[in-house]
């Protein structure tokens, strides 16, 4: 597999909610080993896209391919197996409130691998150190700040050493300094571990800081997709309006 070969691919994917086409015949090839960022105005189907990738939703038309296999055609057992390739950071971390930070990060290890207590502990500590939160294993999620919760969520997503990590709006609700810290974390972690990152966001600055590839979704359609510099500098009116943060243009504020 070459460095740029697609690991994750959407082929003509359409998804409807009621009579609204959230994704309309979207085709995208997300290359391995790079950070792909999908941007777009709120409610344009970015979260739907991520859920389709892990099989939390099924497309109405088209195929979602992971490593060449059709996710939509899998039975539950195959789906569970496929998900082992992924790690996901949910919007507020989706940490389990009934457990401590350490137990949260250890959770996938606990369920999928048979490690000794010490091995588990050391992998948890490594993961937490990787996200800049060493020694917080005994805290509880409601004792953490928003930024810390996201970082713990990332640690949990990384602890099983997945091939692909998904990020659902990683900087939402964070102040500029914390956002920048998360951006740095994303960039360094990917370089260190050589993984494939797929990020959805509407934070324009974050996108510029972390992306290798950028895709712009608007009105269910993929408006533009390509290397980050090309997209960011493009003249495409929708892309331009979004990245220049302008209120006038093809993107209507309803």
């Amino acid at each position: 597999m070459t460095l740029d070969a697609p690991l994750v691919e959407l082929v003509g994917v359409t998804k409807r909610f009621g009579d609204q086409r959230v994704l309309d015949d979207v085709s995208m090839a997300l290359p391995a080993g790079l950070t792909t960022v999908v941007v777009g105005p709120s409610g344009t189907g970015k979260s739907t896209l991520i859920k389709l990738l892990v099989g939390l939703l099924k497309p109405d038309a088209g195929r979602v391919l992971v490593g060449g296999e059709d996710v939509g055609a899998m039975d539950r057992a195959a789906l569970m197996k496929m998900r082992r390739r992924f790690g996901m950071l949910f919007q507020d971390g989706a940490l389990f409130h009934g457990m401590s930070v350490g137990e949260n990060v250890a959770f996938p290890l606990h369920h999928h691998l048979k490690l000794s207590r010490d091995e588990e502990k050391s992998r948890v500590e490594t993961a937490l150190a990787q996200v800049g939160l060493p020694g917080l294993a005994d805290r509880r999620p409601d004792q953490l700040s928003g930024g810390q919760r996201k970082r713990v969520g990332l640690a949990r997503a990384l602890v099983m050493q997945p091939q692909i990590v998904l990020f659902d709006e990683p900087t939402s609700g964070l102040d500029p300094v914390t956002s920048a810290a998360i951006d740095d974390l994303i960039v360094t972690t990917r370089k260190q571990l050589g993984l494939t990152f797929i990020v959805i966001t509407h934070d324009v600055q974050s996108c510029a800081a972390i992306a290798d590839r950028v895709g712009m979704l608007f009105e269910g359609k993929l408006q533009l997709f390509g290397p980050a510099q090309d997209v960011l500098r493009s003249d495409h009116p929708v892309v331009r309006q979004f990245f220049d943060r302008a209120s006038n243009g093809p993107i209507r504020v309803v």
Partner: protein
Amino acid sequence: MLDGLAGLGAAVRGMVASLGALVRFVAGVLRHGGLPPAGELVHQCMTLVRRCILPVTLVVVPMGALISLQGAALIQQFGVERLLAPLVAITVVRELAPGFAALMVAMQAGTALAAEIAVMRVREELDAYEVMAVDPLRHVVAPRLFAGVLIAPLLAVMAMGLAIMGSWLVAVGIRGFSSRAFLEGCLAAISTWDLAACLIKSAVFGAVLSSVACFEGYTAHRSAEGVGRASNRSVVSAILSILVANYVLNSLLYVGVVVPG
């Protein structure tokens, strides 16, 4: 008037559809989930006991006292004092213990359970389970479901003892019945079949209300309102289901078969 009837028709159709969805949900849990992991099951059982023990006690003891109160007045009117103890015993074992223990469990645990799972839905914790390839039906829902079935009979037995104690306090402590005669009368009136029926009833009630609570929580809308609605619907559905089940079980266990005409 026609609107009202149409509304009623829609309501009934809605209820039947929900019932179907509920049955499919439980079947799904049992099929995908199978038996829950033992550690989680024990934890849920303990939590349920801890939550319900005080409410059940506080409700059932006054009820027991009430039976003695009403029963004693009635019996003294007819002059058959020796019937008080059996009356108490039978009412407690056949109806009060399984029924009210279950009702309290429905209210306390039902709302808490539905809300708990609904909140997990809002916080995307259930999605997180799925994405980490750990089946939430097996690890989150099944333990709570089974805990209901196992703990309800336990609480019913406890309720039996407490209700009889409440009755005893009134009959013996206040109305001056003989303690020994009362307790002996109670024990004599309870047959093994009655006890078995009590346990069967409460197990059925426990299954019903934990299914309803888990179902409402699991299918809740992702919002604060969704949590509230899950909680409300689970209480009402649980109460109604328990009453319906109680009627059916009474017919089957005590009368024989539901006789038409």
